[in-house]
């Protein structure tokens, strides 16, 4: 299994380096904007205060000023492009792991080696988890290093960004595993990407609409986005809901995908 994981990472080393550079650049640029936001904080806060509480919650700035480090990081980084970029990477890798390889014909020769289908599949999912975790960790390290002169982490516990990082990674792993499982079960990469992307959108919009419409409020805790954004990861630390639940579900659906992959025809 580890050989399969390692090979999958080595095959993608160049694109993974490019992804790491891109994500780190995004984080650094967003961090660099913080001083100007902080200086005009009163204007931003006035605008944010005019928004409904539910929208503020959705944007991750409920209860804290956007000019504050927590408000800025949650609204401008963790609810925004940062998890989206990692989701694109995770879903892309997860969907390629079996379905992409099957579609481009390389799976046939990989399975010609003495390796069990399940070992190969789990190995490749481990590679997806390691790749997304490594890029999350590197970008978080970059954030932690650039923040002191910008006062971006002022007032937050030292472990705050790491707690947010692990919760965000759990969210990414969940959707990556969904793409992986759909691809492993069907052998169709298009279905894997479309299915996982649909789940991302339903989860995000679902929790948004649920927060806007009181009768639907009870649905909000069913969204993985709520598990992440609603758990105040910068100050509360990783929780069972923000990390344990998505990781557990990711493993469960991946196991279902592997089970099906082990029993179906390959390369039809």
């Amino acid at each position, binding site marked *: 299994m580890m*050989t399969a994981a390692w090979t999958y990472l080595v095959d993608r080393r160049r694109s993974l380096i490019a992804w790491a550079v891109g994500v780190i650049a995004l984080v650094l640029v967003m961090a660099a904007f913080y001083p100007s936001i902080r200086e005009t904080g009163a204007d931003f806060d006035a605008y944010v205060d005019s928004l409904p509480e539910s929208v503020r919650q959705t944007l991750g700035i409920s209860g804290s000023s956007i000019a504050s480090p927590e408000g800025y990081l949650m609204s401008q980084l963790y609810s925004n492009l940062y998890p989206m970029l990692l989701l694109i990477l995770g879903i892309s890798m997860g969907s390629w792991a079996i379905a992409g390889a099957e579609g*481009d*014909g390389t799976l046939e020769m990989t399975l*010609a080696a*003495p390796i069990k289908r399940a070992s190969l599949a789990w190995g490749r999912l481990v590679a997806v988890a390691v790749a997304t975790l490594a890029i999350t960790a590197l970008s978080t390290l970059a954030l932690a290093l650039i923040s002191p002169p910008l006062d971006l982490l002022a007032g937050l516990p030292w472990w705050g960004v790491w707690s947010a990082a692990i919760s965000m990674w759990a969210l990414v792993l969940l959707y990556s595993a969904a793409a992986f499982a759909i691809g492993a079960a069907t052998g169709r990469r298009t279905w894997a990407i479309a299915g996982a992307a649909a789940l991302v959108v339903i989860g995000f919009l679902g929790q948004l609409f649920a927060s806007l419409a009181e009768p639907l409020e009870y649905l909000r805790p069913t969204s993985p986005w709520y598990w992440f954004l609603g758990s105040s990861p910068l100050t509360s630390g990783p929780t069972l809901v923000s990390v344990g639940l998505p990781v557990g579900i990711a493993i469960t659906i991946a196991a279902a995908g592997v089970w099906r992959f082990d*029993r179906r*025809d390959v390369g039809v």
Partner: protein
Amino acid sequence: MFATRVTSVADPRIEITGLTKDFAEVRALADVSLTVAPGEIYALLGANGAGKSTLMRCLLGYLTPTAGSAIALGGSSRDTAIRARMGYLPGDLRLPARSTVAEILSFRSRMQRKAARPAVDTSQLCQHLGIPVDRRFGTLSKGNRQKVGLVLALMASPDVLVLDEPTSGLDPLMQDSVLELVRQRRDSGAAVLLSTHILSEAAEVADRVGVLSRGRMVLQASLPSLLEQASQSVEFVLDNPLPADALADVEGLAKVEHSPQRVRVVVVGSTAEVMRRLAPFGIRRITTDAHELDEMFQQASGDAP
């Protein structure tokens, strides 16, 4: 016209019994049976879509048979211990384009080690075949890609070798080289199942051949017996005129065209008797038509329901 003859093998390395495979409404294979013994090359002939690749993919465990079984080395090739003793070259070889040949071989080598069937040192083979191991697979020519596939198939010193059109895309010199490697594997005791649509290739290496047509095995025979059944068209140019009845009652003679010093005959089986009768008239030149297997193949394929 040709009877299907299933040769039973005492201890087959490959045993396919009543294999049937359906894809939705399409029956790709229908009740196909064959065996391949250790030290034997079995050539599977058939037009495109005849079911050759489907049969091989069932044997390799990629496809689950609808009915029947495809067994290698006494078990399922999904078993890694068995798979470690098998080599496979698919008809349409795809490998990670961005990986170097060395990385691809290294992955396979690690998997072989884990399955307690270490790979042989492939450096000599790569050198012999002229494979640039430091190049990325995606940048190789079609011929070089095919060679990499062949090295992967051979690197475990396999007891069962499954090759889907192994010389496809290779130049004639390299084709000979590849067929020699296949023969060497056979001579060291491996059972070889290869598919081809090049009849001369089958005639050159195979011990037995089977013809698939529309998913059915329509002809199965050893090569010598197949050649015995095959007709040969031979033209003789003679020094002296030949009497009209010189070839009367020669066994196996299907057709005679004859002018005083030139005779064209179509013979089923041996031409020895024809030559014996013509020898007194001075044989100056003999020209044979080498497409007799072609004819049989086409006839057998055409006879399929």
